[in-house]
């Protein structure tokens, strides 16, 4: 299903009207927020940790070239290979060629937003390789031909009945809507794939520059299987996933687990430094790391937008966003949804394509408030709005209205006169101060009446003698 961020308005108004979908998202995000709040409560130094993580990310991003070269050197020292990919096609081609060399008809894949971002699964299929998604949520949506609706829980939008029907139709198993049975079926089916695949693909949550260690955080164990059983492991990461030191991990792991699912620790955290070493039992013989740019260096070029590269993809800003909660992930027409999606999608895909996203926020600020690395998300949206305005990409009516507004507001006499004139006109027209019908507003909400006397006028009339 191909959706574009340019369709946000349409998709969002459709989805917000879908009461079932809305309930699904509101209860799921509410649940996640509750779990998060409980676990964060137990960390009195939480704010301090956020601040430190922010500063470490700042340090990294401001010296990104240095840390990436360091990471590269460390990975190579550990016997791994590093591939720098400028864009989606460079990255995908590298993977497809690797599959050819390995003569791998299938690859097992664990969750990776970077892989989603570049459409790796589609590229593999066109290259004649079958990508098998192994994260349960990803598996479900792959079978359904869907895209993820949440960066942590990709199949959040689907009900157990829908999944049951899907499995029944696609795999011919007897219908069941018991989650545990559906999960058991997927487990059994995917085991076969794990045992035979020659290549396992994973994402990266963090990559420590000093040791060349990539870290994968998960609950299911599929990422462990992808990185342990196949002969070759390939990990793909956006450039910004690098962190300076292995020793920074406790901090980031603590923030990530608690922010995304409210866990103290996820079931599994894999810290992988290169391929299997000689004296070890098992593990891949080759380790490949793709460093993906795909627009990140452009984001870096705008100092005001740089902070969006601090993101650790915890999903908390999605959960807390009142807009995301009501329109769901698919409305955003991109793999990144919610507040961080509204920031990243216009930057990755172009402001013109994603014009509505920066405005898809009431600027309530709860995203910035919850972000474990303290990205000023709603400010980022404001800067994007400003970019749109300075490129004259907003409607001319709005531009005109704004310049009239500014002209009127800059001149107090004009403001005063306008306010008086308006009231006079209403009076002589016999309309009185009955409320106006405001497009967009009035169909669902009453608009207030203009006050008979403005405060300014009242002050003039009642100006106290001795004061002011």
């Amino acid at each position: 299903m191909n959706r574009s961020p340019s369709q946000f308005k349409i998709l969002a108004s459709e989805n917000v009207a879908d009461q079932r979908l809305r309930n699904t998202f509101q209860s799921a995000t509410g649940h996640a927020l509750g779990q998060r709040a409980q676990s964060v409560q137990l960390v009195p130094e939480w704010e301090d940790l956020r601040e430190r993580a922010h500063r470490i990310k700042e340090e990294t991003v401001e010296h990104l070239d240095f840390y990436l070269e360091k990471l590269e050197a460390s990975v190579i020292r550990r016997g791994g290979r590093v591939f720098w990919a400028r864009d989606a096609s460079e990255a995908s081609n590298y993977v497809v060629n690797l599959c050819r060399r390995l003569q791998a008809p299938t690859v097992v894949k664990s969750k990776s937003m970077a892989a989603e971002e570049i459409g790796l699964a589609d590229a593999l299929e066109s290259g004649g390789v079958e990508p098998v998604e192994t994260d349960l949520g990803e598996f479900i949506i792959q079978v359904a031909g869907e895209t993820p609706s949440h960066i942590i829980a990709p199949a959040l939008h689907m009900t157990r009945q829908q999944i049951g029907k899907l499995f029944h139709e696609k795999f011919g198993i007897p219908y069941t809507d018991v989650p545990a049975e559906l999960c058991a079926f997927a487990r059994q089916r995917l085991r076969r794939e794990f045992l035979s695949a020659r290549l396992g693909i994973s994402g990266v949550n963090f990559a420590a520059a000093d040791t060349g260690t990539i870290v994968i955080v998960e609950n299911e164990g599929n990422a462990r299987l992808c990185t342990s059983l196949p002969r070759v492991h390939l990990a793909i990461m956006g450039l910004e996933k690098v962190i300076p030191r292995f020793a920074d991990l406790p901090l980031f792991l603590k923030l990530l687990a608690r922010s995304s699912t409210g866990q103290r620790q996820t079931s599994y955290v894999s810290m992988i430094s290169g391929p299997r070493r000689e004296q070890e039992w098992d593990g891949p013989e080759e380790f490949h790391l793709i460093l993906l740019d795909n627009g990140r260096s452009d984001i870096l070029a705008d100092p005001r937008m740089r902070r969006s590269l601090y993101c650790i993809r915890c999903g908390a800003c999605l959960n807390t966003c009142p807009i995301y909660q009501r329109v769901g992930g698919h409305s955003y027409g991109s793999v990144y949804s919610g507040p961080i999606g509204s920031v990243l999608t216009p930057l990755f895909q172009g402001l013109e394509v994603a014009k509505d996203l920066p405005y898809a926020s009431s600027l309530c600020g709860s995203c910035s408030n919850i972000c474990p690395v303290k990205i000023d998300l709603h400010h980022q949206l404001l800067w994007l709005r400003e970019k749109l305005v300075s490129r004259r990409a907003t409607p001319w009516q709005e531009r005109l209205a704004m310049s009239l507004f500014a002209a009127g507001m800059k001149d107090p006499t004009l403001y005063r006169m306008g306010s008086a004139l308006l009231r006079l006109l209403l009076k002589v027209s016999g309309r009185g101060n009955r409320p106006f019908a405001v497009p967009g507003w009035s169909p669902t909400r009453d608009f207030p009446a203009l006050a008979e006397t403005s405060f300014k006028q009242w002050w003039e009339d009642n100006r106290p003698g001795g004061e002011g």
Partner: protein
Amino acid sequence: MNVSLFIPCLVDQFFPSVGINLVKILRKVGVSVDYPREQTCCGQPAFNSGYHEEATQLARRFLEVFGDAETIVSPSGSCTSMVKVFYPEILQDVGLRKSLQAVTDRTHEFSDFLVNVMGIKDLGATFPHRVTYHDACHLFRELGVHRAPRELIRHVRGIELVEMENSDACCGFGGTFSVKFPEISTAMTQDKSAAILKTEAEYVVANDSSCLMQIGGYLSRQGFPIKPLHLADLLGENL
């Protein structure tokens, strides 16, 4: 103490009673009140829509109008945060730094001013009703003010304050957001209203007229009897 009133345009044109009651309150606590007549708008509508040039011009005007004020008090968390939080982001000229700093330091949202600057919690008002309080986003998250308004409410005689669920969840207004995305905005108000109704309060109180316009507009359209009430109106009318 001399206080200069900063009255947002929405209050000026649609809800002047909020300003009038604020004057009453401030006089009652013994400060002298002035209203710089040259003031218009802080520029927030332009700023939030991305028209930063227009907003910057209005920000400069604000500094001219209020540059000499001893203390600036406003009945809006949103407009106060425009001055305190966003002016420093858009006014980067070194020449303005000092006057900007002075103005941002001296600007206060009114409940914050009363409780945290003046140290006054009890204004002597009486209001024997059941109310619930909505935390306006900018007041709550940009300015971190949530205790002060509750203190003021609790000290009103006869009042019963019932907390709603998720009192800090956005009401759905968001300026032009409310008309750009009316369906989402309304859905947010719908949920906010449900939380309000659950408290069985007679009034929903907030410190921002824009939130009250949104919530009140929805409640009255739905025919619910619960009334929106600005804290300044609650306190000032019932002194």
